[in-house]
């Protein structure tokens, strides 16, 4: 397993370098945005009658950097605070640490995304096998088209259609929020039931969003495996169909781990469409809201976290792949 450890170290190092690049990129991107949020705030404090020193101290407290320093030393300071997990403070919610906002939004993105991924994995993989085996029949063709279509349709279109059917037309499910606002958060059955009820539509949206990816990947993978010699051999040896299916399944499921990383990234990065449609207070909505009020520290923090999540997902998928497929382990 030393090979594995070395691979892990290499991947982590590459991931860290990528995170550093993204941090740098984010920092300079936010500073390239017009309006220089720090200066604007500084001037508004001056207008409010603070003396320059006080105003400057306030801006420092709010933004986590003094905007009159040269850009590079600001950058170093930002890096240093990041290493301590300090993302600065929100401007809009004056004084609230960005990390606090992000932590409270994170579960509302991660849990629905993971549940959706699990559901779509189960359905998508089975549908993919059927689509591959029956690819010359009409139903197999329809199944693959359904996969490509669902994979291609923008997430907000799916979400809006779901909302139309299940909320507007049938009045089955709520259209906004994470729970009934009259209920007290806690472990009471009413509250948990309400949370589940509110999460159904977002979870279905996430599931639909990644279903196509699983189906198409599984289909092409199964087709590749079906052409392999050992399948022909097992056919000739007269092995039971169940055994053959196990052979096929085991070999075909390998490439799906790349899809896992990909769809996790797509869903995480695209979550704001779904969250905005269902008015769900996750990370994506936090990002959108911060953009709406030009809350630059929150913007930078949320963007950074989304990117780091994608990098981490890539590393995990890659490692899973190594663990499962002995051929790439060497």
């Amino acid at each position, binding site marked *: 397993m030393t090979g594995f450890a070395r691979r892990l170290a290499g991947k982590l190092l590459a991931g860290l370098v990528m995170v550093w690049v993204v941090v740098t990129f984010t920092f300079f991107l936010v500073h390239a945005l017009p309006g220089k949020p720090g200066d604007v705030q500084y001037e508004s404090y001056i207008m409010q009658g603070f003396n320059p020193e006080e105003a400057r101290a306030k801006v420092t407290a709010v933004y986590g950097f003094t905007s009159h320093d040269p850009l590079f030393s600001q950058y170093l300071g930002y890096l240093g605070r990041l290493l301590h997990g300090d993302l600065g403070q929100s401007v809009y919610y004056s004084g609230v640490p960005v990390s606090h906002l992000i932590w409270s939004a994170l579960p509302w993105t991660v849990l629905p995304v993971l549940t959706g991924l699990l559901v779509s994995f189960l359905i998508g993989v089975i549908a993919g096998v059927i689509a591959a085996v029956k690819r010359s029949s009409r139903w197999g063709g329809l199944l693959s088209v359904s996969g*490509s279509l669902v994979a*291609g349709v923008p997430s907000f279109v799916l979400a*809006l259609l779901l909302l139309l059917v299940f909320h507007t037309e049938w009045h089955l499910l709520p259209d906004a929020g994470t729970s009934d606002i009259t209920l007290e958060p806690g472990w009471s059955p009413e509250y948990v039931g309400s949370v589940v009820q509110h999460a159904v539509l977002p979870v279905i949206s996430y599931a639909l969003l990644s279903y196509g990816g699983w189906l198409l990947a599984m289909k092409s993978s199964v087709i590749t495996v079906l052409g392999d010699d050992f399948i022909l051999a097992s056919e000739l040896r007269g092995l039971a169909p169940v055994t053959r299916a196990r052979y096929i399944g085991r070999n075909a499921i390998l490439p799906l781990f790349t899809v896992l990383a990909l769809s996790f990234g797509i869903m995480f990065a695209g979550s704001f469409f779904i969250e905005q449609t269902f008015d769900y207070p996750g990370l994506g909505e936090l990002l959108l809201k911060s953009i709406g009020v030009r809350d630059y520290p929150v913007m930078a923090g949320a963007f950074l976290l989304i990117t780091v999540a994608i*990098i981490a997902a890539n590393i995990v998928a890659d490692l899973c792949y190594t663990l499962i497929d002995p051929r790439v382990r060497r």
Partner: protein
Amino acid sequence: MAATAALSTRLRNRRPALNAFRKAVTRKPGRLIGLGIILFFVLLAICGPWFYGSLAVDPNAIYAAPSADHWLGTDFAGSDVFQEVVVGARYVLSTAALAALFTSVLGITVGLLAGYHRGFLDSALMRVTDFVLTIPGLPLLIILSTVWSFGSPWQMGLVLGLTGWGGVARAVRSQALTLRERGFLEAARGLGLPSRHIIVKELLPNIAPYVAMHLLLSVIAFIGAEVGLFFLGLVPFSSTNWGVMLNQAVFSGGAMNSPDALVYLLSPLVCILLLTLGIVLFLDAIDELFNPRLRERA
């Protein structure tokens, strides 16, 4: 008669790629339908605004039901929904086309250079590609929307193209890497042909269907992204398009809760669904052109 037949066979012999394309498209009816849908929307985007220069607003008919006057009814301000859909197609499609253009130019150039030359250039270019692929495109777009106005298709197309070329570059590179070792390329190198000739005349035609496939897939994503930005209201509206319609319907028209507005809300949604379906169906043909293994076993 004989002359035209001879001409058509000559053309067919001269254009094997075109011929194979025609065969692949006509093999299944679904692909023809897909091509038909795409052509329909392209025609709509080109010709639509000629018919409806200025949107007719009828303040006496707000959220009117579909009728002979208003084929798809009217919206909250009394504008004809059908006209809005037709006029809005131009922005959506031209932006997607421009984004595809930028993506393919960047992606093909980077992919071919990296895959053909390998070595230092390859690893440098692939680092950049990895970076572009890692940066989540949609969040970046919404952040950039605070700085740049994406009002014109050129600006929106350029930004979409700049954030979206990574996938094409990587796909082209992997194709170039495999083709590089094939006999005809070795022969071309052995003949001492300049690498510009090899890349443009030998490599490019062989990866064209593959690029087309990736490009069509990214066009779907581009349409989703641009319409989505308008839907979220992040881009100031200068004219109407499907995203603006959705935004107005959902966030200000209250279409989610009033049955009168159903057609107004559904029209842009159905357009996006249809266009996606068209591209997906048509993609099947290109997929087969490039990947004969997917052809059914006889």
